[in-house]
């Protein structure tokens, strides 16, 4: 059992952790509640990823294949962990398929849940067919055709509303979801590429295309693809009577109310804590931080730690995270688990 790491979740972070552990010569048992591996980018059908520009199904597909082809990895799909007993070096997990797994360390790569736009009814999702979430827009881009769901016409104008389900005390979501500014700038580029006659407007409070995403996504979408950035938080989306949508708010730079007609409105939805986290907290005996994500252990010497020794985490389980950083953290968590197992073997020997 001291040669096995249990990894829960098969998104970018879990897949990276698995490859790390297997590559170091240890065994992996991977438990994934869905029937397919790959996490959010695969389950939600993302289009081209930021920042690589590769299609999600190709990029994450390679990560899935690397793990599936590895004989050191045992995969349980459509399965959850129902109980975890034991201590570092000697854990026993019960699975929902009635199997039992013995492992020396556990990595929780359980990720996030997309914000459900229905919780912001004033922005029209669920009421008007031409109001979409960014995941639906990603799927539309991946399908190869930009069209209004209501009647199939090519939209003259698309509005992307940032921070939907993020940075909003009214609905108890006080965090920034970190990637949606960049993803939205990228979506605007993709829409313009596929449908040159469509003008894209992004309504923002701040633009947070951090690090190297600044010029590669924000500037590029503004300068090369003519995306218009309007500083306004939208108050309401309503119907105009002639089949279009009306976007209402205040343009903070002009100090004026605006009521602008649009053909499509896209919610740049944020990353909520995984809705399973209360259950995960109970089953694995780990604490949650104040927003509901997994609580990090001591930051500087307890790499990828949680509140329970021997149980590690990585990626969006800890808070809103990018794929690239989730992959790096997954590798770190895998490395940390292997390090612990090696230390135990040394101690015993």
């Amino acid at each position, binding site marked *: 059992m001291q040669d096995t790491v249990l990894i829960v979740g098969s998104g970018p972070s879990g897949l990276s952790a698995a490859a790390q552990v297997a590559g170091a010569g240890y065994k992996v048992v991977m438990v994934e509640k869905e029937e397919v591996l790959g996490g959010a980018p695969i389950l939600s059908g993302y289009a081209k990823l930021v920042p690589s520009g590769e299609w999600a199904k190709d990029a994450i597909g390679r990560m899935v294949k690397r793990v599936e082809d590895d004989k050191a990895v045992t995969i349980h799909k459509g399965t959850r962990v129902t109980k975890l007993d034991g201590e570092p070096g000697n854990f026993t997990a019960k699975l929902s398929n009635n199997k039992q797994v013995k492992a020396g360390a556990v990595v929780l790569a359980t990720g996030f849940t997309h914000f459900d736009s229905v919780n912001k009814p004033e922005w029209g999702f669920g009421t008007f067919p031409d109001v979409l979430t960014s995941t639906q827009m990603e799927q539309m881009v991946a399908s190869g055709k930009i069209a209004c769901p209501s009647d199939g016409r090519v939209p*003259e*104008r698309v509005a992307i509303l940032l921070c939907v389900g993020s940075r909003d005390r009214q609905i108890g979501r006080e965090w920034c979801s970190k990637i949606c500014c960049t993803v939205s700038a990228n979506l605007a580029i993709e829409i313009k590429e596929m449908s040159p006659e469509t*003008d894209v407007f992004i309504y923002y409070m701040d*633009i947070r295309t951090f690090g190297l995403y600044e010029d590669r996504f924000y*500037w590029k979408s*503004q*300068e090369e693809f*003519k995306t*218009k*950035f*309007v*500083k306004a938080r939208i108050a309401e989306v309503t119907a105009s009577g002639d089949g279009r949508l009306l976007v209402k708010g205040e*343009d903070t*730079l*002009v100090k*004026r*109310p*605006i*009521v*602008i*007609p649009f053909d499509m409105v896209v919610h740049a939805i944020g990353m909520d804590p995984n809705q399973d986290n209360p259950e995960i907290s109970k089953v694995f005996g780990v604490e949650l931080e104040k927003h509901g994500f997994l609580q990090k252990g001591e930051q500087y010497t307890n790499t990828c730690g949680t509140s329970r020794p021997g149980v590690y985490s990585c990626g969006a389980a800890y808070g809103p995270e990018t794929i690239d950083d989730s992959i790096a953290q997954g590798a770190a968590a895998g490395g940390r688990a292997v390090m612990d197992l090696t230390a135990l073997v040394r101690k015993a020997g």
Partner: protein
Amino acid sequence: MAIHEKSLIEPERLLHHDELVVDGVDVSGHWNTMITPRTLTDYDDDFEAKIQAIPGGENVHRCWQCGSCTNSCTMYAQNVQFNPRYWIYAVRLGLKEEIIKDKDIVWQCVSCNKCTNICPKDVRPEGVMKALAHWMEEEGITEKTPSTIFDEEFTEQIYARGRIEDSHVLMGFYKKTGQSMFQNWLQVFGLRLARHLPVSLGLKFGRNVLMKPRTKSWGRTGEVLQQYVREQKEAAHG
């Protein structure tokens, strides 16, 4: 809504009827003063491209509204209504009315280019100010500037004859700008010319003024030139 603090409202948004009866109630005079709403109800999607087509306006779409240009601006220091950052925003969204409101100050940019030097996105706001002034002149929103009128007089003579006759350019310019031909400096200039110019040159000068000669073999060159200039303008302005 009837309002009392009229000084806070732009004059063009104040509606006022001298005589008005509503449901049989006489509300003539200041009782019926109303304000039109300030809501922006649409963008003009083509306006930005129009300004970009005018020399100087090419980079306007890069602006991210940091305000560095306005902050550094020579004219803003004189008059806080002079706000390049704001006009650039209005160009981007096609809020034409906002720019037209400031038609009497936009052209006051003194081309010091402090804004150009400071702009982190290399928008070149000075060029945008020029392009805007140019657009307003072309659309007849502002009157033609004296220099434009001078240029036109000059160019018309070139088309016609392949050369200019100074006195005619001056006469045409003063006439079109409604100025007197009897300018002080012109009288002094004329007197000195008469006193010092050799007789032979003076005769030639007088003959040119009367005969308006063309450049040798000018032929249809003027027409071709005019056509070319027209085409170039159309190509630039779409």
